[in-house]
């Protein structure tokens, strides 16, 4: 049975949810700029962009997060934990690429050996309402990364925008708990077939030709390739790609002093920062942009697959859209294909 939510009821639906849940949704900060934030009233929700600048991982892994507080004496008995999540949460309006990215950050944070309790607590208390991507951009290549604009995996509820209403699918046990929601009505056959048509159209729009498949094997042959020397040239190390990437998860831990003690905080960090791997002795294993760019690409497409069996990229295209020097990761991936062929033939391409 498929359900629907009339758009005129969206505000009330969200308000109703907010009585019980903390609601995280895309919010516009300026024209054309939106992020995921906890909303105070339904009017703040902005579903007009194809994808907010900052990814949905922020809901589980905030850019700045207090790990614990301590008193002035610095003694253990004055430490206050901050990992508890009191209220249940809903992530509303996330696209399938961002939701697929959450399954990638799950691999890192919910590991067998150590569990990141901050991430875990947020993850298990959050119900994800995914929003189908009915109009992907030309820079979207989710279909090349085992994803897609209508990928339902990872969502508890899945909405498709039909114009006047949303088609609602309840996919998991958490989702089924909404079966009796007073704003959901039964969808009719016309609405269901409209949704199918939108899905068919969207699936044709994303780029499935980027050779992400097998890239880890190709990169195995390229660790010391002159390829990196040319690839990194135009990159200015501005870090925008890592901060907007839904799967990047590097962070920095620092103690911040406050009036009555302080707090240990973790903040997102980027492997493209020059001082990222700087050691106290003065030695830096990644002294130039060449090594740092190589690290970023190898991590996403070689090291992560070695550890977890898939590339740490969901094809959302943010790095392509927001890079100030127009570095296009699709081209870099394409070149690994061409490069391998050339390496096999014994040629070296030095000017891609």
């Amino acid at each position, binding site marked *: 049975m498929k359900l629907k939510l009339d758009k005129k009821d969206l505000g009330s639906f969200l308000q109703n949810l907010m009585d019980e849940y903390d609601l995280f949704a895309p919010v516009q900060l300026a024209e054309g700029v939106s992020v995921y934030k906890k909303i105070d009233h339904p009017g703040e929700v902005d579903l007009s962009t194809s994808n907010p600048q900052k990814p949905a991982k922020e809901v589980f892994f905030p850019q700045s997060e207090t*790990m*614990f507080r*301590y008193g002035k004496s*610095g*003694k*253990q008995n004055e*430490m206050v*934990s901050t*990992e508890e999540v009191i209220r249940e949460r809903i992530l509303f309006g996330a696209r399938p690429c961002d939701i697929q990215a959450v399954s990638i950050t799950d691999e*890192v*944070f919910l*590991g067998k*050996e*150590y*569990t*990141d*309790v*901050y991430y*875990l607590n947020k993850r298990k208390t959050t119900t994800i309402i995914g929003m189908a991507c009915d109009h992907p951009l030309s820079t979207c290549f989710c279909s090349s990364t085992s994803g897609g604009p209508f990928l339902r995996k990872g969502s508890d509820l899945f909405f498709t925008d039909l114009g006047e209403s949303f088609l609602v699918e309840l996919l998991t046990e958490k989702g089924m708990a909404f079966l009796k929601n007073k704003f959901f009505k039964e969808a009719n056959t016309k609405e269901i077939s409209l949704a199918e048509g939108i899905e068919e159209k969207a699936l044709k729009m994303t780029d499935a030709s980027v050779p992400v498949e097998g890239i880890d094997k190709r990169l195995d042959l390229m*660790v*010391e390739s002159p390829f990196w020397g040319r690839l990194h040239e135009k990159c200015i190390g501005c870090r925008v790609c890592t901060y907007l990437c839904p799967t990047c*998860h*590097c*962070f*920095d*831990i*620092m*103690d911040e*002093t406050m009036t009555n*003690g*302080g707090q*240990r905080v*973790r903040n997102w*960090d980027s*492997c493209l920062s020059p001082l*990222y*791997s*700087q*050691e*106290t*002795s003065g*030695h830096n*294993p*990644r002294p130039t942009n060449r*090594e740092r760019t190589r*690290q970023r690409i*190898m*991590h996403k497409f*070689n*090291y*992560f697959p*070695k*550890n977890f069996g898939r590339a740490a990229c969901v094809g959302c295209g943010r790095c392509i859209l927001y890079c100030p020097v127009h570095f296009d990761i699709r081209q870099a991936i394409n070149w690994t294909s061409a490069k391998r062929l050339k390496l096999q033939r014994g040629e070296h391409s030095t000017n891609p």
Partner: protein
Amino acid sequence: MKNPYHPIPMVVKKAQVETDDRMLRTIELSFLNEEDAKAFHFIPGQFCELSILGKGEAPFGIASSPTEDGSLKFTINKAGVVTTGLHHVAEGAEVGIRGPLGNGYPMDLFQGKNVLVIGGGFAFTTLRSLIAYFLHPENRNKVNDITVIYGARMPGLLLYKEELLKWEKRSDLKLVVTVDWGDKDWKGKVGLVPNVLEEVGPSSENTYAVICGPPIMIKFTFPKLMALRFPNERIYTSLEKRMMCGIGKCGRCNIGHLYVCKDGPVFSYAQLEKLPKDY
């Protein structure tokens, strides 16, 4: 669920400056709570993240051996904010700890074999743990010959001087202490570690080598180990890399697909050969 980022409280039992240049200080810490002490089991080569609330956290190799009950020893090199803080903590002060972290030395592989330990400068900390472990009566039979070559730039910069004197007198271990430059009181060997290794010429047969030291020392010692026919699978080292979380989450300390904090810091050269030169 246990929060792996929360430091556990320890108290500074003893602290003393190790070296003449006052840059290295050894602190002995004991757990504040009995149950934490009981739950803490480690092997040589592992490290801990020591934390001073307000200053930060940093990783340090455990210098004491698991056979030395009651307290944990760390030798701190004064270099930045946290290490300066650890140089100033007085006896009785509280220090946080997270650990034990890392993989430690491959103690199982050493069973029934000879062990060659080569250390330089203040990288000797976890080597002390390894040696003290095997010198314990319960463990001495686990390995055959133990040869230790330890060098520092000058006599005043040697760590654990009193212990070295005791060890030199033992018959169940061959210890050669050397310095790059002697002083008027120094009666021991003078010579660079790679040259002393060549001189001592230990057999590589059935032997595992563990080498820890500054990059320059490793650079020149490694070819000597090659000349002595040590295969890469039997040469182990403990790597240093900038770390943050210590548990393989923050992404900072990776070498290829391995994390120095979780899959290391101890690696064999056979492993390192397959990884990018990212260290």
